[in-house]
């Protein structure tokens, strides 16, 4: 026995190219939709993770533009401004502060790095406070520094791979001709820390001739503290720039939202176009089959039987498009990630596009719903074809 599903499916095979193109149209919309939603989710997650991994909620830098500061904090950077280390004590004395950690970032161009040279970032950190504040950093091998001023380095996971160094190897700082000993290698974190070379603050100050200077101070605020009031007070400090992470998060989100609105518009347009495509395809096939539908009616099919048949055809098209599109989105998530990374003003280091099965299923549901809705009109139209249609068109 054959069922209505079989008939609907076979009907779609009659104009294969047309059906395939329609499915592709829907698949495209589903792909864009899934990728967008995945991006929305992934970006937020990664950004939060990046910020959490910093271990501190506020960063004090020398005066500069806030975007620069944000970039500096999360990404490292050159063209740095300095502030005097004396400020650390005054900040630490604030009642809201749980702990502070001073940092000195130095970036050196290394002509031997990669194919065309690259920048090595050396971050001088305070051995007493930094490892404690960054509880998420775990050693893959070795340990933190033996002495607050030792000429030693702890390498981020990727930095170690790039420099091809292991614990106890020596590392040369180009230009300065200074050799430092690698004492530890960190686990992968998926953040900017992976590419950083950590050294004792005092050693960096000495080697780079920046005694008493800092580029940043990380502040961990007490959990019960009134952060807003504290931020307010910190903003009034002269010559320094205070960046709170909620502010960074907002700044970045504002920057990204423009891109998001654009992608979201594209997704909506894609969905609309595919709906028009589906309705058009189904209407066309109904028009072509008027006589045949008339015969089906003469054979005893009721209006609602025909309605069901055509509706089913629409839903099959849409569901097929949804499956293809979601699968495509899952399969190309990495590619989408690369594309988005190229477009965005700032991207966190973790995965930007988080597409899971639930999301793919959600899209499939949305697209199928679209099919159910857009099939209503053509199906109603087909259902209202009269059996006589058959013969009348034969006369003409």
């Amino acid at each position, binding site marked *: *026995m*054959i*069922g*209505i599903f*079989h*008939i609907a499916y*076979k*009907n779609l*095979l*009659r104009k294969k190219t047309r059906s395939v193109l329609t499915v592709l149209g829907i698949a495209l919309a589903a792909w864009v939709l899934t990728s967008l939603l995945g991006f929305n989710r992934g970006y937020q997650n990664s950004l939060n993770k990046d910020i959490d991994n910093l271990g501190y909620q506020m960063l004090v830098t020398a005066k500069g533009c806030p975007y620069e500061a944000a970039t500096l904090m999360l990404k490292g950077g050159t063209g740095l401004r300095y502030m005097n280390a004396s400020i650390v004590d005054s900040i630490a004395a604030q009642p809201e502060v749980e702990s502070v950690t001073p940092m000195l970032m130095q970036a050196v161009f290394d002509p031997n790095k990669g194919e065309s040279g690259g920048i090595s970032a050396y971050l001088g950190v305070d051995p007493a406070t930094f490892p404690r504040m960054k509880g998420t950093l775990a050693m893959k091998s070795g340990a933190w520094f033996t002495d607050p001023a030792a000429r030693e380095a702890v390498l981020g996971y990727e930095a170690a791979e790039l420099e091809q160094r292991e614990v106890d190897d020596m590392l040369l700082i180009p230009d300065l001709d200074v050799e430092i000993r690698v004492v530890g290698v960190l686990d992968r974190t998926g953040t900017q820390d992976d590419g950083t070379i950590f050294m004792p603050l005092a050693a960096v100050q000495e080697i780079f001739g920046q005694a008493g200077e800092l580029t940043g101070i990380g502040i961990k605020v007490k959990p019960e503290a009134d952060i807003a009031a504290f931020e307010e007070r910190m903003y009034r400090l002269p010559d320094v720039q205070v960046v709170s992470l909620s502010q960074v998060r907002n700044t970045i989100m504002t920057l990204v939202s423009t891109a998001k609105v654009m992608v979201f518009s594209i997704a909506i347009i894609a969905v609309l176009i595919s709906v028009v495509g589906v309705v058009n395809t189904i209407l066309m096939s109904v028009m072509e089959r008027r*006589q*045949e539908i008339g*015969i*089906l*009616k*003469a*054979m*005893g*099919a*009721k*209006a609602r*039987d025909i309605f069901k048949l055509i509706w089913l055809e629409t839903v099959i098209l849409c569901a097929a498009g949804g499956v293809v599109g979601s699968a495509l989105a899952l399969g190309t998530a990495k590619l989408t990630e690369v594309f988005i990374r190229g477009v965005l003003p700032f991207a966190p280091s973790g995965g930007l596009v988080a597409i899971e099965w639930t999301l793919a299923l959600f899209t499939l549901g949305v697209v199928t719903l679209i099919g159910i809705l857009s099939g209503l009109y053509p199906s109603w139209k087909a259902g209202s074809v009269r*059996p*006589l249609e*058959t*013969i009348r068109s*034969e*006369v003409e």
Partner: protein
Amino acid sequence: MNDGRAIRAQHGVPAAPGGACPSIAAERLVKTYRRGAERIHAVDGVSLAIEPGEFVSFIGPSGSGKTTLINILGCLDNPTSGRLELCGRRIFEEGAALGESKLTDIRREMFGYVFQKFYLIPTLTVRENVMLPFVFYKKPGAEREVDRILELLGIADRRDHLPGEISGGEMQRVAIARALVNKPRILMADEPTGNLDVARSEEIAGILKDLNTKEGLTIVLVTHNMALARTARRIIELRDGKLHTPA
């Protein structure tokens, strides 16, 4: 014109009160089409009766109203005026027609339709095409009936072929098979050999004749081919929408 009662007696079909089934009784049927300001009387006051087990053919030149008439008799179309009864049941009377859903039931149970074009679904096999009515109208024993009809019409060996892979004559047999699986009482065939050559037409004529004599199926055939019309026991000629009793 032939007397219905005589035929009924001849074929041993018992008469029932209000008319035996399937019998079609038409009185002063009129179908008027409007073409611009002009009015066309496609069917112009036709009265006739078709009795159970009859094989009637309508003949007449193109445009004489054969299709219009057979569609009204087959409950596919409503007349403009007149009266139509099926098995004593009033289908149409002076402006009032049966509702569409009742008409669908009647079409389902009483009629099978065959047309000049075959209207087979090209992506369904012969057997699936014949099975099509059961997709909308479930019936126990459907599969067996399909196979029986395929056998009866000599297309059982073509059952798994697609319509594109068989000849025109075979396609029309598939269409006839599809019209028959619902076990209709009356087969309405409008120019069923219009697309076929002489040899295939004769085959179809033979099949119709067999269906009438062996299966007791009432057949109403429309054709403008006199040779084919002669297959029927009764020939009714139409001219300009009116019955034209042959000399």
